[in-house]
């Protein structure tokens, strides 16, 4: 009888071990990426302007509706007619847009052009240290730039002598 009991216990142990293995596998299956860098409020990187968050890859038509019509626009046909490039210049901000032939125009880059625009208080002319304090630790930091990345875009703050000289968000 004790033999039988032993076998039962062994079997039970196997089952429990498998359950534990299973549980471990289940828990391990989740994505392991670190949480997003604390830039802005959105899951993707974006630059705020006039109460609107602008991200690379956004459709341009609704953005222009939200930002207003006080812009100037330049356009250039891409070589071989695969689409058109546009730049929309607002006071303090420029939107770079690409419209593939027959496709939707999307924002490829966006940049601030003077200190009239800010992301979390960081403006052109601000100090690099203050930028790091406001935006969090960058993914890459050199003397000439701070770089924040997400899956599809990269936010670069160009620096000169510790001062922010450009704030540019672009598609990767």
């Amino acid at each position, binding site marked *: 009888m004790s033999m039988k009991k032993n076998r039962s216990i062994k079997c039970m142990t196997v089952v429990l071990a498998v359950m534990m293995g299973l549980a471990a596998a289940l828990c391990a299956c989740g994505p392991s990426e670190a949480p997003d860098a604390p830039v802005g409020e959105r899951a993707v990187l974006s630059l705020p302007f006039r109460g609107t968050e602008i991200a690379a890859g956004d459709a341009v038509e609704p953005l222009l509706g939200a930002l207003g019509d006080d812009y100037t626009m*330049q356009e*250039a*046909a*891409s*070589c*071989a*007619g*695969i689409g058109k*490039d546009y*730049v929309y*210049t607002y006071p303090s901000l*420029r939107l*770079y847009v690409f419209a593939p032939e027959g496709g939707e125009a999307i924002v490829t*880059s966006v*940049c601030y052009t003077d200190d009239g625009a800010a992301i979390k208080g960081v403006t052109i002319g601000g100090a690099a240290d203050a930028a790091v304090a406001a935006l969090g630790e960058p993914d890459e930091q050199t003397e*000439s*730039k701070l770089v924040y990345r997400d899956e599809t875009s990269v936010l*670069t703050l*160009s620096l000169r002598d510790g001062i922010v*000289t*450009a704030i*540019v968000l*672009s598609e990767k």
Partner: protein
Amino acid sequence: MKKIRVIVAACVFILLLGLLLSLGQALLVPHDPLANPEAALIGEFVDAFAEEDVIFLGDCEIYESISTVTLWKEYGINAYACGSPQQLLWHSYAMLQHAFAVGQPSVVVLGAYALRYSEPQNEAYNRMALDGLPLSRAKLSAVSASMTQGESLLSYLFPLLRYHDRWDTLTWRDVTLLAEPPMAVSYQGYLMQTGVLPDENGRPDHEGALPLTEPALGERAVDYLEKIALLCRENGAQLILLKAPTDSWAYPWYEEWEAQTEALAARLEIPYYNLLEAFDEIGLDYSADTYDGGMHLNVHGAEKTAHYFGEILQQYGAPDRRDDGRLLDEWKGWTERYEHEKEQVD
């Protein structure tokens, strides 16, 4: 008996499949040069390039900025502009390998603008650069360096796999073109643009361009420049780096790039010419010499630039071939067509 039937069936299968796929490929791969002249440039280069003394390699700055016909007319230089939209340096390397395989150019002029790129940029431009090249190790290497996300090597080996979805946009012209002789869209690689759209400033500048966030030249581009330099040395050719006289918000040329290009050229002992600095000497005028507001030159600008750059080419040993009767005949035909196209708009 059954074995023979199976063997015959297998042969029929292979032949039928090959025939239908070949037909499909001929029809579906874009082959109308008038619909997209830029896409036909490399195919033309492969068909035409043989014994030219000078080869230009690069993007639109190359195939639209220097008139090869002017180089011939004024200096007797037998040149070919092997350009394609956004030609990257690894594309140029593959094309140069092809050029040395079929000919012996003595001067190689390489566009400097592509030095900014370290990564492949656009599938459409990759296709325009690579689809026309014949299969070779150089092409395979360029393809693997060029593929953007979602592209596959197989689709470069069998372009039908890329263009198969054109089946519902085929026109009757696609069919008739198969029976027609090939049509040239360029003049030894030079793609003529005849329109005029003046630039407000009259001079090149990149006001409005995206601020430069990555000042370094492309690492991979620099590697390939070194490879190109080595290839030229091995083949006894003189390599020249060239920046065309254009600068705009869409295609800016930053001071940082200029400084690095100069340093790089000095390190590799390659002569470098930035024609932006010779803008006035060339006699360019953006109120008349550009067809798109200063981003590219039109035929008038390209002729002025060729007139200026021809002298430089002569300094590097580009010979005057106007004493070669066969070349004279060939160029006569191209020149007549060139003048005819130019006059039609003028």
